[in-house]
């Protein structure tokens, strides 16, 4: 038997959300820490400290709840209740079934698309798709690199393509901007990567020989000095 009926849980939640924001004695975590906790980015010990703080601080609870709702609004349960009985069993099944069906459909669509592309486009697939409005893809080798060998690589365009690149750190401070690269790679000089930087965000704009321009998504490269250098 449950301790509270669903509507009582909703009422308890409402009571906490209607509290006047006041800060618990002993000081509050800063807003970045609260954001990172809501985003699930803190390490377990820090996260635990924050959650225990939320238990006694209405102001931080409000801040944390707002962050959570902003980061993943689709995750907020509409009725805000925990499923029970057969509903819970169905939801457990649904958690398995829905992704399985979605994955099957995606694989089906992917295979069909790949077959069609292969049939119609025998030359290298990546950039041919880009010419049709697709994406520039980063090389998997750029996922994790050492500071002293930070080579950013991406898929090549047709002969004569020129590339511009912009790289920033996590705070969007620009580390490097280069224009007119002729090869689909760039070695980010180690002196441009501050010691505190663990991630590099970078974006490529390709200028194709026919005058068109394609911009990539923003890619992330982890800086890890233990990672093997690229050859």
């Amino acid at each position: 038997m449950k301790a509270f009926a669903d509507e009582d849980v909703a009422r308890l939640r409402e009571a906490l959300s209607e509290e006047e924001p006041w800060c618990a004695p002993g000081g509050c975590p800063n807003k970045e820490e609260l954001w990172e906790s809501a985003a699930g980015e803190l390490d377990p010990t820090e996260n635990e400290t924050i959650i225990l703080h939320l238990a006694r601080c209405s102001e931080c609870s409000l801040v944390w709840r707002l962050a959570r709702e902003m980061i993943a609004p689709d995750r907020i349960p509409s009725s805000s209740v925990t499923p029970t009985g057969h509903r819970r069993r169905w939801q457990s099944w649904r958690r398995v079934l829905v992704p399985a069906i979605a994955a099957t459909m995606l694989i089906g669509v992917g295979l069909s698309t790949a077959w069609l592309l292969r049939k119609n486009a025998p030359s290298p697939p990546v950039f041919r798709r880009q010419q049709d409005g697709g994406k520039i893809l980063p090389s998997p080798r750029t996922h994790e690199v050492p500071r002293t060998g930070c080579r950013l690589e991406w898929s090549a365009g047709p002969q004569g393509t020129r590339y511009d690149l912009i790289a920033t750190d996590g705070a969007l401070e620009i580390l490097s901007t280069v224009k007119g690269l002729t090869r689909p790679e760039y070695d980010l000089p180690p002196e441009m990567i501050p010691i505190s930087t663990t991630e590099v965000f970078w974006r490529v704009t390709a200028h194709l020989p026919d005058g068109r321009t394609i911009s990539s998504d923003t890619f992330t490269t982890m800086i890890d000095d233990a990672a093997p250098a690229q050859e």
Partner: protein
Amino acid sequence: MEALARRVRRAVGRSCPPYLVSQADDIAQEVLLQLLRKLDRTEGKTGFSSMYLLKAAHGVTVDEIRRRSRRREQTGMEDEMLRNQSSAADPERSALSRSLGREIRRCLETMVPPRREAVTLHLLGCAVPEVATRLRCSEKSADNRLYRGMKNLRDCLTGKGLRP
């Protein structure tokens, strides 16, 4: 620039608690100023992802929430916006709700930490799977902590003569 301002307003619309809605334009303006300063520093060579905008809007909203809380603590005066929000709803119900909120927090303090964490997250809107993910434990363990914690909470509130 107009497109950026629109994105900022949308982000602030998501970050603003109901009692600060009338401040939303001021908050959006502050966010926009921060972004423009950033653009200025980078000579316009930077773009802003949606998550960056949301975080910026959240940051400025938090500053406003905290500023108003400090002012209330220092002056002992009620926040007019909070009062307006309460009086727009049923005032008696709002007062009861606030007192219930305070007592819930007192009850939470008496629980062992693992249950306190699970119940806190649940009362902040997380269902069992999310509680499990956030506490890095199995769903079964989260369910168990939550069940026992909610039972503790019920007993504690009942002991104070309260029920939701």
